[in-house]
């Protein structure tokens, strides 16, 4: 049960986002700029970084949502979902680019603590032609998801385990992005259809 009172039926970060619109606006703008804005890394690649960090932080909701969004950006097949699972388990052995492996290594260091990032980690990424912007954004995605993960778990949010819920979230997010989504309106529509609130 959540540590404070949220509207029922809103999974994960959506409970606190609806609870606090004044903070959800800049949080939404931040994640939109990081994961969905114009970039030399694909949305799938940036979602992989968010997913890996969330997995290292053991945040079930965030790794499931962003893992599903990454898989949907790749096409949404079972193989795409299997790739995301392999990245979480051992990205060094996963069939992704050497550049992505170097960026995930940096993200993993940031997850442990910013000071763990070494000049050698940066050099490895540069060897794979990672730009300053890509390194900057990798560090900020990793840092931001440490914040999002702690926000979601620190408030004890409801995190359903049905994979279909995350498949749907991944489909919607990969198509619509993160800004201007009215989670409260969607909840009311569900309640109207079902005649009652979720538990």
């Amino acid at each position, binding site marked *: 049960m959540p540590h404070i009172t949220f509207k029922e039926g809103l999974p994960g970060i959506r409970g606190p986002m609806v609870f606090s619109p*004044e903070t959800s606006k800049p949080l939404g703008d*931040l994640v939109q700029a990081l994961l969905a804005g114009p970039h030399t890394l694909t949305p799938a690649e940036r979602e992989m970084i968010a997913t890996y960090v969330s997995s290292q932080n053991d945040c079930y909701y965030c790794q499931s949502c962003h893992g599903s969004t990454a898989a949907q950006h790749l096409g949404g097949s079972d193989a795409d979902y299997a790739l995301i699972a392999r990245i979480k388990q051992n990205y060094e052995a996963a069939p992704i680019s050497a550049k992505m492996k170097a960026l995930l290594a940096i993200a993993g260091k940031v997850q442990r603590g910013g000071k763990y990032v070494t000049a050698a980690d940066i050099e490895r990424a540069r060897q794979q032609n990672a730009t300053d912007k890509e390194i900057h954004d990798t560090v900020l995605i990793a840092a931001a998801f440490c914040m999002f993960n702690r926000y979601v778990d620190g408030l004890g949010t409801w995190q359903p385990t049905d994979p279909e819920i995350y498949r749907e979230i991944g489909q919607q997010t990969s198509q619509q992005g993160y800004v201007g989504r009215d989670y409260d309106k969607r909840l009311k529509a569900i309640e109207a259809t079902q005649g009652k609130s979720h538990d």
Partner: protein
Amino acid sequence: MAHIRLLEGITGILGPMAFSPETSKPLNALAEVLLRGPNTLSSADREMIATYVSSQKDCYFCQHAHGAVAAYRLVEGTNFQNALRKALS
């Protein structure tokens, strides 16, 4: 030395903030709401939370920047502050 090329002479988070305006805008907006926006906790109290977490994370820049703001907010509006203003005017 910073891991990426940032403008010289700009401290802490201000370097990456200047490097990446598209992310610094929502980050600043978030900090503004959390630490300075209308709230039942005073700005000093909220800066103390930011300072304590930064200290626990051993982030030198953040704990000093927010610690200084918290200290300023604590004396702001007090008689001490007014007395100081009067003395300096």
